[in-house]
Every structure is written in structure tokens, then in C-alpha cells.
């Protein structure tokens, strides 16, 4: 992974901070989140509900819901050799596209599939309608939709969940974006269909040299697909590194606890390891490390600890200040 650090990042997110102002009380669901996205990689943003992973993605896309505002931090993107601030309005549908969790609600129900997919060609690239439709059919074939000519005339509700997700991917490809932001793209799908879609993403990434950010709660999906992973907890990234390394040798107690709680695909059913307590109420987060109230390794300094990610090895950063956990990171 050393070459990963040498290459220039496609996207740099620094100290991203998102706030919600509800009845005068301010909560910060995304707090000082920083990461770099390398050209051609798949980065997983993983965490439980309320960890801020989806809002981070929406902030990148400039699609934060009403009442939710980015109040700090910067997002820069690279074009050629120049890093410049990312303008989501301009970047959306040109260099980046989003794939949503629920294609049933994310696709306009009143338009035929071919027009949905053709639209980015017409709007973004000024292609004539008939040519755009032909391109749409070709894309449908590329994303593995059987009988694309016939299905191109269908409306979204006439397709199964798996096919709708393929349509959404085709729409993203039609924008000719090379950066795909995926929000739980397979969570609503059955396991054999999920398997197909994940395979499709792997193939497309290789063929088209795409860069992907994948938001998910499913550690196994991250493990199958992502080159690097950033683990989020209560609005912050607690650990990041190469997926295989992080999962084999977690450098933060939260990552370790989360991994231990996943039922493994192995014989024998003993009690699963659980994490005591529940994530903090965002209106009232603990000082210092936000995981410390649930952490069995917490010691005095954790209450005052900075939460900055620290490099402990190449490509490996952890927010934990406990020597034992830093050791684990270094030990890789």
C-alpha cells in the first residue's frame, strides 16, 4: 500500500463539521472528519446508525438535508495537478455521482428507464435524444440488465430491486463521473443479489478506472470490497487503514469490539461479544474520546485526549491514545 501514499489523492477532506440546529439546540453529527481518497481505490466508511457516515457522504455530494449544514472544514478535489476546493453543485453529475440505498424511491417513477439513463447524456453532454437512448441501452447491457432493449421501455416499478439498483448504477455511469459515492447500495437487497451487485461494482471499477466511496454498516461487505476503511463512531473517524490490516489487527477498541460482535460464519454458537452501553446522545457527548464511556481500556487521560487521528504505521491511523492500541497498530 506504499504506492497509495505516493499517488496524489483525488479528494481531500479536512476537518469536515456538520451541524443540525433543532429547536435552538445544536448537535454535531459529523465532527472534524478528515480523510483522503486515492485515485482508483474503494474506501469504506463504516459505522453503526448515528455514526455520521451517511451525512459525511451527503456533505461531499452537497446534498445535506434541510436544516443540516456544513459549518466547517474543506473538501478539495484534484483536477490534473491542481488541488482546488470542491464545488458540489458543479461536480455533481460531472465528476461524481451518487448511488442511493433505496432505488425504489430514488428513481423518478414517471419516467421510463431509458429516459432516466439517457438524461445525463442529454443534459450533461448535449447528446441528441435518440443517440442518448442508444447509449442508455448499451449501458444497461454493461451493468448486466438482461434484455436491455425490452426493459429500457419499462418504468422503475416494473423492475425488481436488483434491476433497479443496476439502473441507478447505469445512471451514475451515464454522467461519465469517475467518482461514485455509494450509500448502503446493497442493504435493501437479498444476499444473492447483493453478491451480484458487489461483483458488478468490482468489475466496473476495474474496467472504467472508477474511484468509490462506500458507506455501509456491514463489516463483511467492507471486507469484500474496500481497499481502505474508515471506521466512524459518534460523528468522528476513530480508525483508518487498509481494510485487511484493520480487520485483522484493529488499532482502536471500538473497531475491535464491533468486529467481535459480528456473528462469524463459523461452526459453533457461543455468546457473541457485545459492547456495553449505547452510542452517546449527540446533544451530550463525553469529553475527549467519545468511546471512552463504553471502553473497557479507558484510563484517565482518555477524558482529555485529543481525538486527532495519529499515524501509527503506513496508511494506518488511530484516534486511540492508549499505548497498547497504538502498539497494535504499529505491530502490523
Amino acid at each position, binding site marked *: 500500500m506504499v504506492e497509495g501514499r505516493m499517488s496524489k489523492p483525488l479528494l481531500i477532506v479536512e476537518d469536515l463539521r456538520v451541524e443540525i440546529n433543532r429547536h435552538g439546540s445544536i448537535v454535531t453529527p459529523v465532527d472534524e472528519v478528515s480523510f483522503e481518497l486515492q485515485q482508483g481505490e474503494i474506501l469504506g466508511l463504516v459505522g*453503526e446508525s448515528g455514526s455520521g457516515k451517511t451525512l459525511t457522504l451527503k456533505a461531499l455530494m452537497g446534498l445535506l438535508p434541510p436544516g443540516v449544514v456544513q459549518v466547517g472544514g474543506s473538501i478539495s478535489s484534484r483536477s490534473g495537478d491542481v488541488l482546488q476546493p470542491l464545488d458540489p453543485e458543479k461536480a455533481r453529475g460531472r465528476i461524481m455521482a451518487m448511488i442511493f440505498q433505496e432505488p425504489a424511491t430514488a428513481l423518478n417513477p414517471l419516467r421510463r428507464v431509458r429516459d432516466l439513463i439517457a438524461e445525463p447524456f442529454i443534459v450533461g453532454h448535449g447528446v441528441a435524444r435518440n443517440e442518448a437512448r442508444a447509449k442508455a441501452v448499451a449501458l444497461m447491457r454493461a451493468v448486466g440488465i438482461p434484455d436491455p432493449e425490452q426493459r429500457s421501455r419499462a418504468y422503475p416499478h416494473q423492475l425488481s430491486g436488483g434491476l433497479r439498483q443496476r439502473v441507478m448504477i447505469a445512471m451514475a455511469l451515464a454522467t461519465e463521473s469517475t467518482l461514485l459515492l455509494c450509500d448502503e447500495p446493497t442493504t435493501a437487497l437479498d444476499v444473492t443479489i447483493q453478491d451480484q451487485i*458487489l461483483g458488478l461494482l*468490482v468489475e466496473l471499477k476495474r474496467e472504467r478506472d472508477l474511484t468509490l466511496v462506500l458507506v455501509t454498516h456491514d463489516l463483511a461487505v467492507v*471486507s469484500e470490497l474496500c481497499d481502505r476503511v474508515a471506521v466512524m463512531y459518534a460523528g468522528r473517524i476513530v480508525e483508518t487503514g487498509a481494510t485487511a490490516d484493520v480487520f485483522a489487527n484493529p488499532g482502536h477498541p471500538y473497531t475491535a469490539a*464491533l468486529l467481535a460482535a459480528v*456473528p*462469524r460464519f463459523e461452526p459453533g*454458537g457461543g455468546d457473541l461479544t457485545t*459492547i456495553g452501553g449505547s452510542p452517546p446522545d449527540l446533544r451530550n457527548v463525553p469529553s475527549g474520546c467519545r468511546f471512552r464511556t463504553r471502553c473497557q481500556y479507558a484510563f484517565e487521560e482518555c477524558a482529555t485526549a485529543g481525538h486527532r487521528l495519529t499515524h501509527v504505521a503506513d496508511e494506518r491511523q488511530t484516534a486511540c491514545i492508549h499505548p497498547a492500541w497504538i502498539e497494535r497498530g504499529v505491530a502490523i
Partner: protein
Amino acid sequence: MTALLEIEKLTVQFGSATLTDRILRRRARVLRAVDDLSLTLEQGEALAVVGESGCGKSTLARAIVGLVPIASGRVHFDGMDIAGGRDRSTRRRIQMVFQDPGSSLNPSLTVRNTLAEVLKVHSMVPADRIGERCAELMDLVELPPAILDARPQRLSGGQKQRIGIARALAAEPDLLIADEAVAALDVSVQASVLNLLRQLRHRLGLTLLFISHDLAVVRNLCDRVAVMYLGTVVEESNTEEVFGNPRHPYTRALLSAVPRIGVKKTSGEAALAGEPPSPLALPLGCRFHPRCPIAAEVCRIEEPLLESRQQHAARCHFAWESTEPITIGEQP
């Protein structure tokens, strides 16, 4: 061992011939959600029913609980025929835990009222002991008694699911049916609810029917597994047999489609191509043949029976062709 629940040739269908159908003498659009299904549940065991959405597993659960009418077949519970209907005391003995903690509790009742109602209606304890029993139930599901006076909207998903379990246990059932009971929970919460179910099962001697799409969870919790596809059981045996020596190609595909931690997906190849056909138009012959990688001529013509060898049953013409154990994918 004695059988607590015996299901023979059960069929559950939705939609029936309407008046217009009868006048026009056309075939009614009938959806057979459960089709010719046989299953036996021994006293005290935990049986998992797994399958993808639309396979009929939830309908099977609802038919056993008595929430959907049974079209044909025999359902014997503790020696009584309950296919045609059941009295209130028999109904009490089969309870269900639902999937969505958000909608499984009445929002206008406090937890205490929810539990007390069960105790009162079924005269489970004398009136003056109801308060005491509510506290015991909270203890059983590992919640503090203070929660008794809260309304569901104040509780977390995990807490609501525990109350759902407590409500079912208040009726002191013999058979507990859990319909995707942990599917909507975060990983760490899911682990603690799974542990709770395992403990309760042993402490109270419950018989458990665990409906799930998540094979890893099933492997962790259950003694036996039945795999459903398009309304019927295609394979059934003890957990280790099904996972270690699957005989039906669908089971094999399902097992290899599950994402696993530590296994990276490197190609777009999927375990299973295509999507299940509509249950409104079942394929002739074996219902799995259109997607089956080993389908032969006979599979298109003749529907295989659920054939059993040494307590391992599979509904495939080629299940017992070779007795070699079949390994799937990259087993960790």
C-alpha cells in the same frame, strides 16, 4: 424427543377467484406464498428457516401464529390440529417476536400497560401480582424496571426489541417464533439480542422458530436449518450438515454469496445469476431450475421430492448423486 409442531403439505395463498374470474372462467391470480411445505419442530429445539425475500418464510411464520388463513394442509401443535383455527389458550402458547422494533409496540401504551395487558387477558398471574410479574419480565430481558413507565418512542431499537420479547414471554409460550427479529438492529445491539434469545431458550426451555435471511446469525443460534425457495423447503438438516455439506445447489449458492470478513471479492462472478421468478408463475419441474448451474433435462420436467438421507433432506434430483462433501468458495 417429541414433536411440538408438525406441518404437513401446508399451502398458504393470497388472492382467490373473484366473481369476474368465475364468470369469465379464467384462472384466478393466486399467489402461493407457501406451497406444499412440510416441517417438524421438536420440543426444545431451535430451527432456522432461511431464504430470500419472497420465499414465503414470513408467511409461514404468520400462518403458524394464525395471522393468515391456511388454504390446505395439516398443522399439528402439541397433538392438536390448529390449521382450521384455535382457541385463545392455544393461541397464547405460540407467540411471535416481530422484525421492526419501531412498529411492533403500541405507541400509546407504556411498557407496563403493554405487559400487564397480556397478563390480564390470559390471567397469567393473580391481579395483585401483575406489578411484580412485570418487573420479573423486565429482569428476564435484562432491562431496568424504570423502563416500565416509559412509552416506546423514548426507547432505543434494542430496548424496544427486548420489550417485544418480554411481551411474547409474558404469555409463557411453548413456541416462540422470531421473524427477522434482529435484522433491523445495529451490529452491537444485534449481538446482545441474539445472546438474550440463546439464554432465554435454555433457561425457559423454549422451542424456537427463527426466521432469518442472515446465515451467519442462524449458524450462531440454531440447531437445525431449513432453506426455503419460492414457497417450499429445498433443504433441511442440522446446522453443521447444511453449512458443511450442503446438497442443494441453491443452498450452496446462498452460502457462497454471503459476504465474509477476511475474504476479498476480486471478480464480478456471482454465486447465482438472475433473480427468482414471480411466485405467480412458478416454473414447471424443479422451481429452481431456471437459475440452477447444474440443471439437466429432468429438472425442467419433473419436480423433485424432498428426499432424505440420514436426517438430511434435499429437494434436488442430484442431491445424492455423489456423497462427497461439497466445498464452497473460499471457506475460511
